[in-house]
């Protein structure tokens, strides 16, 4: 694990801390700053990249969480925004086992639009294993005699009923879309809880769910409640429609539609800048 060696140069400190909005003050355009791997901005950017990946992959069996940031660089791109170049390890979302490593770029645009992510990962989990897991999950969800319903997943004590684990994993995948879209350089998200889930039985092959998920927003510490409609079929892009209302601020936060038109496999994506 890398450690901070000597005290960082004063200019570097200033850059990190001057802004009220917690953003680094604009460096000279095009200038690159090396960030400490333990920098919160680097971790935030890495998490955004993983939200994007988890949504794009559309595979509850392949969800990944952030392990450790190994390298991070920040570049200020004139008239565009701040771009992070990252190298980090990942863990399997459920088990915590090492899952591999990724290279990613995350551009936070100057305009209030979602981050632009490109990410490429080497994962240790067998692709076939993942597909088998997804298929098993899918079969269970598809062959319900009654639509699945649930509340408070996990419950107050952190328990997830085994029967609802797949539904929770799907919620993580779907929420990743919401969290990616809402993330900003100074706004991070975690999925705190599935408040409720209700399955809609469909005549075609797709599985469909109505969720209420709670997102934990940093640094405001607010809990955001989002209503999410999700459709899934293994090997297909995840379709997500959502509407979020901050529990504290009332109906003011954004709503969004699916953009699952991109291919649902993990590959490098994103515009060239």
């Amino acid at each position: 694990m890398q450690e901070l060696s000597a005290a960082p140069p004063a200019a570097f400190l200033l850059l990190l801390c001057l802004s009220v909005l917690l953003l680094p003050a604009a460096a000279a355009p095009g200038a690159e700053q090396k960030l400490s791997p333990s920098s919160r901005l680097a971790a935030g950017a890495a998490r955004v990249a993983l939200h994007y990946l988890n949504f794009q992959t559309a595979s509850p069996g392949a969800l990944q969480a952030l392990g450790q940031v190994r390298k991070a660089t920040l570049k200020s791109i004139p008239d565009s925004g701040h771009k992070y170049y990252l190298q980090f390890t990942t863990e399997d979302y459920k088990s915590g086992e090492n899952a591999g490593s990724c290279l990613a770029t995350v551009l936070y645009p100057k305009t209030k639009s979602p981050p632009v992510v490109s990410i490429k990962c080497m994962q240790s989990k067998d692709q076939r294993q993942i597909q088998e897991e997804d298929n098993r999950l899918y079969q269970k969800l598809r062959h319900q005699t009654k639509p699945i319903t649930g509340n408070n997943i996990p419950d107050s004590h952190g328990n997830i009923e085994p029967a609802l684990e797949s539904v929770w994993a799907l919620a993580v995948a779907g929420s990743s879309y919401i969290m990616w879209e809402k993330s900003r350089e100074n706004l991070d998200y975690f999925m705190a809880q599935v408040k409720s889930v209700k399955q809609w039985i469909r005549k075609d092959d797709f599985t469909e769910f109505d969720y209420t998920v709670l997102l934990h927003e940093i640094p405001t510490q607010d809990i955001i409640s989002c209503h999410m409609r999700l459709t899934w079929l293994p090997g297909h892009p995840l379709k997500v429609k959502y509407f979020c209302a901050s529990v504290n601020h009332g109906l003011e936060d954004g709503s969004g539609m699916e953009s699952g038109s991109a291919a649902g496999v993990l590959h490098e994506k994103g515009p060239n800048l």
Partner: protein
Amino acid sequence: MKLGLIFSALFGVSLCLETFVGHQVLRIKPKNEEEVKKLQHLETMGHLELDFWKNPTAPSFPADVRIPAKRVPLVKAFLESHGFEYSVLIKDLQVVLDKEKQDMAQSQQKDRSTATFNYGTYHSLDSIYAELDHLASAFNDIVRKIQIGESYEKRPLFVLKFSTGGRNRPAIWLDAGIHSREWVTQASAMWIAKQIASDYGKDPSTTSLLNKMDIFLLPVANPDGYVFTHTTNRMWRKTRSRNKGSLCVGVDPNRNWDAGFGGPGASNNPCSDSYRGPSANSEVEVKSIVDFIRNHGNIRAFLTLHSYSQLLMYPYGYKCTQPADYAELDDLARAAAYSIRSIYDTTFKVGSICKTIYQASGGSIDWSYDYGIKYSFAFELRDTGRFGFLLPANQIIPTAEETWLGLKTIMEHVRDNPY
């Protein structure tokens, strides 16, 4: 005792890192010495990940073994092809565990009258307060329960004082649960209280610590919020004080301290979860601690527990400049993080609040540091976001164990470096 610790540590590790869905427990009865040897050989094959609950020792003596789901077909095929006699004790271990959790949850509700407090589960405020009395009585030579004030809704703020005597000895302050939804902190504080009490006279470090210093431990710094997380909203963070001119309730007690109050990193909107409050120390929960520390006059360390994120931080939060004692605090924090890592390989990031988490004004350790308490640290315990506030109860004790090692490292340094 040590073997027990290692066992529970391994057990804890396995509980933290796996679920047991589809795991089966088989009972195998070896008919002769040859079969016993075959089973013992099986044990050595690490890739099978077999967990023998009862080892194969002699013919006719059954061996019980837990087999991970993905290995079950292979192992059964092996057993059958070699003519082993076996039966399935447990078809799906996770089902059994879940039932156990359910039972625990149910028995929890009537556990007020029972003599034993389960440190590996989450408790109601009443249950915690009952256990504080029990600890004070069971260890009455070194533990005393004192009240330092009342919450907004008039609940007592109870502190356990650990002391072996003296008058106004240099002391260490430790609090948990200032943010009520961070349940692993109150739970860990309880385990740590029990550990300190029972370690005195047995563990050389704790013994020498308490021979020189006192410890004040506030396990539930925000009891109103804590009750609210049980009755109404599990995600409640703030106090439950009424805000003038607003329908929204509560103040973020860790933005309410007199340290850069009103500065960036705290909201002035009563509906926000990081609302700083109308003025510094407006919250009685905060004022009570401030008054206690001031009146005591000899607090040498101020330690506070939060979750989640796995961080060990020192001042400042309200500004991004380094504290004067940066080098020493950083060194000590790293040493503590190293200790934390030693049992379960849990990694904590180290740094100042501002650099590590975000700029935040009105925080408790900034106040304590500027007040003159050099050794001021804030912990963010498990996990890193997977379960977040809803940390499974089976992680309470492992979390408490590793946190205690980190705290001990800091406390030992405080003991050995009077100032």
